[in-house]
């Protein structure tokens, strides 16, 4: 059932477009090209580590997944209300399947990172084995956020807009276009509370082993798990009410 819905999402996403599945690689590639142009050709900046485009993409691609999954899971029950209303499956599935389908799109975008890594001869370190951990942590966090937001958005529709604004802010308070080294000393404790800081440090470890910070990862893991538990509880509590509203 779960797999079926994930496949459905991916099919719907590319239905009717001429290039179809190719877009899952083409899209991040073109995005990367834009960022490459802006941050290495136009702007002369000193953020992050070198090669900067690899440093950027290592966090930007998972951010794209995060951003897309939060936006979509928040609307999951509202957009597919007809389906939710007519099929009796575990209602959590409507949310979780989006985390998975967006995650698969992220995996499809990894060749783009590999391409730039080869072009810029970035050195691969053993920390590449930490990628699955980062992936699992991000899935946990996203599942929690999705389960929390999806029922709330049905009940208070304005939340959908709030989510979009918060995501925009969240992008800038997360080390994506900059690295944890660029964060001023005074703010480091605040940034450490952002669960994405630890998760993204793991992603970057593949090419920049110094980025991995186990204290941050620990905070991320605890927070992600807590968010998942809260999300699960809220979802279970609101399920009855939500079914009446959609």
């Amino acid at each position, binding site marked *: *059932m779960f797999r*079926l*819905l994930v496949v*459905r999402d991916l*099919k*719907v996403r590319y*239905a*009717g477009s001429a290039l179809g599945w190719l877009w899952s690689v083409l899209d991040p590639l073109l995005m990367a090209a834009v960022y490459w142009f802006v941050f290495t050709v136009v702007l002369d900046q000193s953020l992050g580590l070198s090669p900067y485009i690899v440093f950027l993409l290592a966090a930007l691609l998972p951010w794209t997944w995060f951003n897309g999954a939060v936006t979509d899971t928040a609307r999951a029950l509202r957009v597919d209300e*007809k*389906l*939710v*209303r*007519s*099929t*009796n*499956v575990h209602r959590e599935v409507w949310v979780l399947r989006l985390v998975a389908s967006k995650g698969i799109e992220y995996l499809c975008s990894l060749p783009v990172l590999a391409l730039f890594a080869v072009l810029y001869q970035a050195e691969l370190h053993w920390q590449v084995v930490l990628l699955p951990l980062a992936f699992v942590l991000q899935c946990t966090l996203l599942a929690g956020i999705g389960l929390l937001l999806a029922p709330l958005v049905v*009940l*208070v*529709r*304005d*939340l959908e807009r*709030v989510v979009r604004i918060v995501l925009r802010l969240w992008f800038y308070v997360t080390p994506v276009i900059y690295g944890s080294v660029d964060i001023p000393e005074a703010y480091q404790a605040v940034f450490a509370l952002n669960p994405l800081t630890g998760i993204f440090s793991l992603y970057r470890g593949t090419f920049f082993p110094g980025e991995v910070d186990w204290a941050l990862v620990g905070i991320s893991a605890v927070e992600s798990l807590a968010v998942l538990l809260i999300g699960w509880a809220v979802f279970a509590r609101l*399920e*009855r009410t939500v*079914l*009446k*509203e959609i």
Partner: protein
Amino acid sequence: MHPVATDGPIITVEDAGISFSTGKRHRSAREFLFTGSRGQQVRQFWALRDVSFEVDAGETIGVVGANGQGKSTLLKLIAGVLLPDRGRVDVRGGVAPLIEITGGFVGDLSVRENIRLTAGLHGMTRAEIDARFDEIVDFAEIEDFLDAPYKHLSSGMKVRVAFAVVSRLEEPILLVDEVLAVGDAAFRKKCYARIEEMTRGGTTLFVVSHNEADLRRFCGRGIYLAKGGLVFDGPMEEALERYGSDSGLLR
């Protein structure tokens, strides 16, 4: 047919109740923040209240009552797409719901993909879908449009495809909510034949309809709902009489 426990009722509804708020459907954040809508009295309306009955496997049940008396809500509770606020609704065995049947279809995907997806969503395995695919296509008379996007079908065709899929689920319980009213005469005849074939084969049937002829044809037992309560539960003919005389009085 999926295995069903043979002892005891297949559906148990016990003191089931469900309430909806009759206030504004969507609370806006503005109201929430500035007028404090939390303090406002939200009126509750019980769509169903203290409803109890049991259904044995193979029974055919027609639900009657005027509009807004809880008929469709009852069907949704049995389908599991609504949850009771009070009491319990136990359904042992799978349900094939002919409720909002075109809901799960995606306009941009082809008819072929839609058939596979919807069948899968309602619990059919891949092997079962393969085995029944041709049957479904034949029944819906949709061979020539298999690769067309679903959105290009006429509304009659859409319902035909949906009915074909859901009626091939081979679940022990079939729920029908007014869908018999759609489609042309020829297709309706086919649907009737299919439903009769299923009930003869032992499928438990639940029908909500305003068509007395349909109810008499398919149902042995009638449930009459008024104001969310169960007024009568017995032979279909009697249920129709009770409903008829009550609504006659109202007029």
